[in-house]
C-alpha cells in the first residue's frame, strides 16, 4: 500500500510502486484529467503538479511520491466552478479537441504559481515541452496571460489590506 496525496486528499493505493502515477490517477482514483499521450515524457498530455513542479505523470513511478503533494486539473476547480486558469481557458476558448488541455493547464499553473506575471517569452519557453496538434497554441498563450492578469487583479486588494 502506498499513501498518495492527490488534490489535498491522502489515500492508500494498492499498486506496484513501479506503476507510473498516470495509471494510478486514471484507474485507481478515476481521475480523467491526466491523459496518456506517449508514455515516455515527450508530449505533456499527462502533466500534473508534484510539490509545485510540473511533471509528466507517465514517467513518474508512484512509489517515489510518498509524502509529496500531487495536484491534477481536478484540483483546480470543477466544470461548474472552474478555477482562475480553467476559466481563462474557457474565456479564450483555448481548446479544439481538448486532449492536451488538462496537461497544458497544469504546466501553466506550475508557472503561475511561481511567477504570477510571466513575460510572453517566459510562457513560450515554459510551455515548450507540451505538444498540441490542433494548433491551439495562440489561444493557450492568451489564456495564460488572461489568468495572469486576473491573478494580478485578485492580488492587488490583498496587498492593500496587508501589512
Amino acid at each position, binding site marked *: 500500500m502506498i499513501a498518495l496525496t492527490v488534490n489535498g486528499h491522502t489515500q492508500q493505493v494498492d499498486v506496484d510502486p513501479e506503476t507510473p502515477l498516470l495509471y494510478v490517477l486514471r484507474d485507481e482514483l478515476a481521475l*480523467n484529467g491526466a491523459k*496518456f*499521450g506517449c508514455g515516455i515524457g515527450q508530449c505533456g498530455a499527462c502533466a500534473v503538479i508534484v510539490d509545485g513542479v510540473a511533471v509528466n505523470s507517465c514517467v513518474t513511478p508512484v512509489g517515489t511520491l510518498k509524502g509529496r503533494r500531487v495536484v491534477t486539473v*481536478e484540483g483546480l476547480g470543477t466544470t461548474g466552478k472552474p478555477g482562475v486558469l*480553467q476559466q481563462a481557458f474557457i474565456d479564450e476558448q483555448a*481548446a479544439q479537441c481538448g486532449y492536451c488541455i488538462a496537461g497544458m493547464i497544469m504546466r501553466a499553473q506550475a508557472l503561475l504559481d511561481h511567477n504570477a506575471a510571466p513575460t510572453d517569452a517566459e510562457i513560450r519557453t515554459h510551455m515548450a515541452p507540451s505538444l498540441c496538434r490542433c*494548433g*491551439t497554441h495562440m489561444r493557450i498563450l492568451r489564456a495564460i496571460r488572461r489568468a495572469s492578469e486576473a491573478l494580478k487583479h485578485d492580488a492587488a486588494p490583498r496587498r492593500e489590506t496587508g501589512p
Partner: protein
Amino acid sequence: MSFSLPLRPAMPQAPAEKRLPGSLERSPQLDSWIRIDERGAITVFTGKCELGQGIKTALVQVAAEELGVAPESIHLVTADTAVTPNEGYTAGSHSMQDSGTAIRYAAAQARSLLIGAAAAQLGVPRQRLKARDGEVVADDGRRLGFGPLVKDELLHVTADGRAELTDAAHYRLIGKPLHRIDIPAKVSGAPAFVHDLRLPGMLHARVVRPPSYHATLSRIDTAPIAKLPGVRAVHRDGNYLAVVAEREYQAIAAMHAVEGAASWNEAPTLPESEKIFDWLTSQPAEEVPVVSGSGGLTGRMNILEATYRRAYQMHASIGPSCAVAQFENGQLTVWTHSQGVFPLRAAIAQLVQLPADKVRCIQLDGSGCYGHNGADDAGADAALLAMALPGHPVRMQWMREQEHAWEPYGSAMITKARAALGPDGRIAGWDYSVRSCTHATRAGPAGNLLPAWLLAHPSAPPPPRPLPLPEGGGHRNAAPIYSIADARVAYEFVSAMPLRVSALRSLGAYMNIFSIESFMDELAQSAKADPVDFRLRHLDDPRARAVIKVAAERFGWADYPRRQDHGRGFAFARYKNLAAYLALAAEVEVDRKSRRVRLKRAVAAVDSGEAVNPDGIENQIEGGILQAASWTLHERVTFDRTRITSRDWSSYPILRFSGIPDEVRVHVVNQPGAPFLGTGEAAQGPTAAAIANAIADATGVRLRDIPLTLL
C-alpha cells in the same frame, strides 16, 4: 455525400429541383433529427461527430435559432448507429453543409408545425403566433408549451425542406460567437473522451503489433505471460497479438512481455526513403482527367516549369487511438472516436462475422484526428477482444509508437506545373499534373481495418480507387481556380501503397494548393507583378476577390516594411473549389545561423458562407494555420527498407511553443443568408504556399519540397 452549392449570395439554401437540403435528402424523417417530449425537452440528433472542430456547438446554435429557444435547452446526440441519422463520415469539411443545413431546415419545419398546431388550438391565424423559449406565444398573451403541442406525433412526418428560415435580420444566435459546449468539461477533467469511459467490470487491453507491415510471427510462448499479475488473456490469432488484464498498467507490462517473447520474420519491402519520389514516378498510374483542355502551351512561348514534392506526413494525434467494446447477449457495442460510425459498423460486423444489426457503434470524443488515423482500427481491436471475452467491457488504447508506425499517412506526392504568360501579362497556358497514392482507404470494407490484415484468416484491403470529382482525393484542388483560357490538369493515380496511406486533413488539396500558389508567385515574378495583383488579375468571383483584399489589407501588404531575414508571402484558395474561400498573408523570419524558418505572422480572411459560430471558424483556421505550418516546415515520415522509423515525437518532431508565430489573425467575412461552406480544412494549402512564397521573398530561394528546408 457531395452537394453542389450555387454561388448566389442571397438565400440559395432552398434546394434546386427536388433534392432536400443537406442530409435531409438521405434521412428525410423529421423526428430522426428533432424530438420533443411531453415535458417540452428538445433533443436534436446528428450523424456527425465532434472531432474538436466545435461542430456540436454550431449545430446547437442552428437548431436553437430556428426553434426560438436558448442553446442550453437543447440536448444534442452525436453519431450513434442505434439512434442518429446516417451521415456517413465526418470528413471533408462537410458537417455544416450536410448536418447543419439538415438540422436548420428540420428545426424550421418543427417550429412551423408547432405554430400550426397552436394556431388550430387557439383559433388564431399563424401570423399572430411566435415560438419563444419553448412555447408558442400569441400576440394576446396566450401561450402553449412545446410539450403539449407535440402529442399525436406532430413531428413524425417527412421533411419537406420548404420551411421558412429565420431571416438574418432577426438572428439571436447565428453569426454570434458562442462558447463551445464541450470545453468546460475538457478543462476540468470531467469525463469527456472515449478514453475516460469506465464501465463496470471493464478490462484493459493492449495490442502487440508486428515490427513492420509484413512481418510474420515465427515463434512465441505465451504461457509465462498468462501468469503475470492481473492478466486475463493473451490473445493470438495468426499475426495478431493482444493482452487483456484487470488494470491498465498490468496490460502494458504484459504487452512488453509479449513483445520480448515474440520472434518475427521480416523482409525489406519498402522503397528506399531517399529515392521515394523516383519510386513514385516509376510506378504505373491511372490517368484521371481533371481539366481536359490542351494546356495552350506552344513551342514559341516562354514556358515556366516547376516540380514540387511532398514527403509522407502523419496525422500524429496527441492521444493514441482508443475504443471500448462489449459483447453481451449476442450484441456487440463499440464506443469509438471514429469519424464514421455507420461505415465502421459495417466493417466491424464483417470482421467479427455478426449481422450489422447486432453491432452498435457509438461515437464519443477523442483526440483530434485530422482525417483517417487509427480510430477505426482501434474500434476493430476492441471489438475483436470483446468477442474473445464475452460479457466483459474491454478498453483498448494504442501505444504512442503504434499510432505513429501504423496510422495511415498522407501520401508522398509530386506535382508538375508548366505555364506561360501572354503579352498581356496574364496566364496564356497551363499544364499541371499531380501524382500520388490513394487518399481514401477508410473502413467500410473490413479489409481496410488494420487488425484484419493480421488475423489467421486475413482480409486484404480492396484495391484503392480515386475519389470522384468534383471533390476528389489526390486531385482535390488540382484544377486552378483562376481564369485561364486553356488549361490541362491530370491526376496520375498510383494504386500501389508500400506505406499505409489514407485521408489526411484536406487530402490532395494541401499539396495542390501549395504547388499552384507557389507557381502563381513564380509566374507573378516572371510577369514583374505584385503577387496579390497577379492573383486578382485572374479572378472574377467577387467573394474570392473580397477575401484576398481583406487579408492583404489587414496584413499591411501594400506598405510592408523590408527587413533583413524577413519576407512576406501570399496565397489564396477556395477549398475543393466549392467550399470556403481563404486568403492568407504570412511573414517568415529566417535564422541566419541555423537556416531555420519560423512563421512569424499570419493574417487570414475566410468566407465560410453563413458563419454560425464565428469564433469556432477562427479557432479552426488558427489551428489549421499552425498545423499546416508544422507540416510545411517540420514534418516527414522516416523509414528504412523494412520499418517505419518515425515512432515517437523525437523521430517525428512537430511544431512546439518555441516555434509558434508571434501573431495569427483570422478575419471572418460573413455572408448572412448564404449557404454554409465547409471550413475546417481550408487553411492547410494556403498556409504552405504563403510560407514558401515568404521564404522566397526573404532569401531569393524558391523551395519546392515539403518539408521546406533551407540548405
